[in-house]
């Protein structure tokens, strides 16, 4: 017996299409995120609009991938690694769609800032930039881990989330100081808080995707797991033996 393809080539093709499609959706969200961050940092109205517009495509892709997942379950009654892949994709789709929503929040803040009629003194925090880079890196890493079904790489992404959380709290402290020093900056500072929070949530979604990758690769559900439980899950074999 072989352990590669299914007896049904059509089924193989459907699973391959599912994998490709979720990675394509991931790429779209990555692009949306980087556009939104750039739009906020400049700020740039056209870029902000482009990021908001991309969210529509992300939402459409969510609906379409959900349809493919339901179709696969109905027609193929998947089991074992096929089932884990399909369930994993269904969960990752939701994380990606929510990541898209967070990117849209950043783009809306950029839109507000880019209005030339507003004469605001907005805080330009290097930590927001660094935090955005870290969250983007996490998202890319989680998608790469999915592409290679690499549980170890996924675990590293999960560990990175703590840094993004700490950066958010540091940003919050700086913004509070900023607002106390100059009350005229309260409105743009609050916007910056929402942006920083959106970035922090994107880190959470990337962490969740990494957890789903471990479920797909190892069959272990590590949501809400302690670091020790996570290590144990990873030490379980990557796949069946024999």
């Amino acid at each position, binding site marked *: *017996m072989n352990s590669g*393809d*299914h*007896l049904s080539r059509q*089924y193989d093709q459907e699973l391959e299409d599912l994998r490709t499609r979720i990675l394509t959706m991931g790429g779209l969200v990555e692009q949306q995120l980087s556009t939104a961050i750039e739009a906020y940092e400049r700020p740039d109205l056209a870029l902000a609009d482009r990021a908001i517009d991309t969210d529509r495509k992300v939402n459409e892709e969510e609906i379409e991938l959900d349809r493919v997942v339901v179709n696969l379950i109905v027609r193929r009654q998947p089991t*074992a*690694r096929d089932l884990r892949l399909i369930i994993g994709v269904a969960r990752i789709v939701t994380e990606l769609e929510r990541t898209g929503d967070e990117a849209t929040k950043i783009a809306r803040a950029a839109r507000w800032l880019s209005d030339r009629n507003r004469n605001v003194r907005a805080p330009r925090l290097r930590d927001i930039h660094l935090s955005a880079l870290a969250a983007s890196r996490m998202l890319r890493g989680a998608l790469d881990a999915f592409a290679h079904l690499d549980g170890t790489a996924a675990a590293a992404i999960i560990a990175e989330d703590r840094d993004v959380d700490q950066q958010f709290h540091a940003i919050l402290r700086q913004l509070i100081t900023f607002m106390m020093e100059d009350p005229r900056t309260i409105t743009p500072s609050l916007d910056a808080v929402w942006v920083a929070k959106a970035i922090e949530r994107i880190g959470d979604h990337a962490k969740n995707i990494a957890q789903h990758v471990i479920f797909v690769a190892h069959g272990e559900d590590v949501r809400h797991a302690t670091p020790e439980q996570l290590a144990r899950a990873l030490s379980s074999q990557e*796949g069946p*033996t024999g």
Partner: protein
Amino acid sequence: MKPSPDSQATIDMAPVTVSADATPASVPEAPQAKAQVENLSFFYGEAKALQSINLPVYSHRVTALIGPSGCGKSTFLRCFNRIHDLYPGNRYEGAIRLLPEGVDILSDALEPIDVRMRVGMVFQKPSPFPTTIFENVAYGPRLRGLRPNAAIADKVEQALRSAALWDEVKDRLHSLASNLSGGQQQRLCIARALAADPELLLFDEPTSALDPIATASIEELITTLRETVTILIVTHNMQQAARCSDYTAFMYLGELVEFGATEQIFLKPGKRQTEDYITGRFG
């Protein structure tokens, strides 16, 4: 039902051991075993069809046997009620111990008919006797000497109720069993088996000749019956194994490849061969 005094004399009280590879790791606390298969090999003449199988059959649970055609799952099932004894040249090695007393049902000293009183079987194709519904179910109790007729009638009603058939046939108990639908005939065969108060009930692809509605009613019945009897079922339909069973054993080329809780086998099998089979990567 207890074994006859004669069969009690053959009870082998050897300690029961469960092989490490056949104990499901994913179940924190396994229930008590109703039967324990120990190094069971089976030969059709010179051909070895089963290779040293070790397996616990847990009490009041449904255990499904899955595997490709020719893997030995039906051969294995039929060892439990000694059907192989009907053909010359067939030979067993090892033991199947009924617990808790530990009697080996493969022992030459035990009469196959005594085994079959304790281990019932339902076949792939409904096989009612060419007589009335009532007489089909009354056959076993009569054979065991149950008297008077009122007691037999009670037994028949009880068995038909347990097989979820009573309401459909109570007004035509003396009609021919062959007038029933396929699904009803199969439930009648289950009632016939239940009337003997078996400890273990064997199902050999019990729904392969039935439509989806009749299949669903048999599956529902299997789930209900485990409260009173331990069930071992051979099925080609993996979704049926996933739906009905608590434990699943995967067999290939006469060997037990993997045994575990059904959820674990269908979500995260431990052996590559199991995964390839249940995901449709080989048939």
